[in-house]
């Protein structure tokens, strides 16, 4: 088990580095001049050149590359071109803000999706209705769901704030958006796993043992649904932490996604790099956590692969 973990961590580090290198190269492929973005009204070429020298943009690509990764290994993500503030101090609080939204969103999709999945399995009459709901939210893009929620609950019913921000009142609609759009996946996984489990020999054994239905459902059936659900939760948390861009933009949620979009528009390369790297770390970390949790709930995954 320890060896498996060490290997996973090593692969994770390699993955993060790979993402960082790719992101770095992409920034230089994307057209645009950061100096012009910083000083859009500057007329003289000398001013722009001065900015480039200050930001070391005049040096050869390989030198910039080595500089950046040298600093990265010291834990330094550099300084924002635009905000004159360290990238770490920019990302830190926003990571927390996005973290709350990611957590609330995952809780929402697990509750909505899990309920739909369980209902459609236990009550065959609801199956068609649940399938219709699943299909609808699979087909709708996040920003449409978000805007519709905003329109109904914000502008019509005045039940939710529409001004943006990161308070407990503001989190409801973006989390619900993530929940509704993500729920079909959970619904499907839960329904499939439950169907497998309910028709299994071990559930027949449990029935033969005269255990109560509810006990069989919780102890024997849902325990076996947990493992794939945990994998999905880990993937979602990682992905959302690396930025739920559309949702953050629609609701003005000041998280990492919003920061990444603004920085891309400003060609603020160090901040873009920072968000990409932090996002990659989040994805790797939460998949790792999910793997560990899965070993806890499913003993079959504990053994070392041969």
């Amino acid at each position, binding site marked *: 088990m320890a060896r498996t973990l060490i290997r996973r961590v090593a692969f994770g580090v390699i993955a993060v580095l790979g993402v960082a290198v790719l992101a770095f190269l992409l920034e230089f492929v994307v057209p645009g001049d950061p100096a012009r973005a910083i000083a859009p009204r500057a007329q003289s070429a000398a001013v722009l050149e001065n900015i480039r020298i200050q930001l070391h943009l005049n040096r050869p690509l390989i030198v910039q590359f080595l500089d950046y990764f040298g600093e990265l290994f010291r834990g330094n993500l550099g300084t924002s071109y635009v905000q004159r503030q360290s990238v770490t101090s920019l990302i830190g609080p926003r990571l927390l803000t996005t973290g709350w939204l990611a957590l609330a969103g995952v809780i929402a999709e697990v509750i909505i999706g899990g309920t739909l999945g369980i209902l459609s399995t236990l009550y065959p009459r609801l199956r068609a209705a649940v399938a219709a709901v699943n299909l609808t939210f699979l087909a709708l893009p996040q920003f449409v769901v978000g805007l519709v929620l905003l329109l109904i609950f914000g502008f019509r019913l005045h039940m939710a704030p529409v001004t943006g921000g990161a308070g407990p009142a503001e989190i409801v609609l973006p989390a619900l958006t993530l929940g509704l759009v993500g729920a079909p996946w959970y619904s499907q996984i839960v329904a499939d796993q439950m169907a497998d489990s309910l028709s299994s020999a071990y559930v027949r054994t449990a029935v*033969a*043992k*005269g255990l109560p239905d509810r*006990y069989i459902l919780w102890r024997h059936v849902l325990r*076996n649904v947990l493992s794939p659900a945990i994998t999905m939760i880990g993937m979602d948390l990682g992905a959302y932490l690396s930025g739920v861009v559309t949702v953050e933009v629609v609701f003005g949620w000041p998280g990492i996604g919003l920061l990444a979009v603004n920085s891309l528009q400003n060609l603020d390369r160090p901040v873009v790099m920072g968000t990409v790297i932090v996002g990659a770390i989040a994805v790797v970390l939460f998949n790792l956590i999910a793997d560990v949790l899965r070993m806890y709930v499913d003993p079959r995954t504990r053994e070392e692969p041969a």
Partner: protein
Amino acid sequence: MSAAPALADAALQVDNLRVCYAGLPAVDDVSLRVEPGQVAALIGETSSGKSSLALGVARLLPSSAVVTGRVTIAGADLAELPGREARRRRAGLVGYIAQDAMAALNPVLPVGRQIGELFRMHRGMSRADASRQAVRELARVRIDRPERVAGAYPHQLSGGMRQRVMIAMAMALSPPLLIADEPTTALDVSTQAEILHLVGELQAETGSGILWITHDMGVVAELADWIAVMYAGRIVEQGPADEVFDHPAHPYTEALLRTRRDLRTGRPGALLYQIEGSPPALSADRRGCAFAPRCPRRSEICDERPPDLTAVRPGGSPEAALPEAQVPTAPWLAACHHPEVSP
């Protein structure tokens, strides 16, 4: 494995059991009795209805199956009780040993917990008491270091150990009836022998009746007091194991036993006896005897009407006189228009 007092309730009494899927009978008008302390072997080819009969007896069939007839286990008729009550009672009445213990045990729960559940639900034990009792049950099926095994998950145990766990679970509440659905089929030969030996010992302790489903004639020879042969959903012959084994009356029983005898005596390379053709598909209305198309004794009457189960006596004809001691206590029956009892 002694004969039970005649007046005691049978461990299992099945009367005119029918199990239908989508209107087609998988089990057709089966009557069977298992005495306490007795092993009744239910034999037949795959899809002869053995498992449907077993699951029908234990009321474990899916709701799509239509079950009619009467089943009493130690005098209790589960069909007379309301659903929830029946399910609760069943665990104390019948233990079910499945064929594939790996699939029949929950992969994500330690086996000790899966045994302990029974005591928590049915005996109202605390979690701690139930887990201690589970360890005792594991010791009872001769598992070494039962404390350790109780904490293991099914995939960490060997096939034989898993089957022991299944047996411990089935016998935990000391039910008067055990149903064993080919429990040794997936095991290697030496483990099979251990399991058979174990079940024999445990039965001597508890006096349960056992309905043992198998197509392995070796198991039958080893364990059975009573043999019931199924073909196409019906019992075609049943009787005391010694009688049926040595003097099969039905041509199908004879053929089944011949496959076994050839295996035992066959020289390497010798052709094994096999029954020509394959069992018929489920059918709602069948004229004549289901075995007729494969039967060496087939005659006109076999195609015209199905044979009834009638009493058989050694010597071929019911009139043949027998010394009093040799008359079987329970009726030995066969459903064949041309029963031939080899001497």
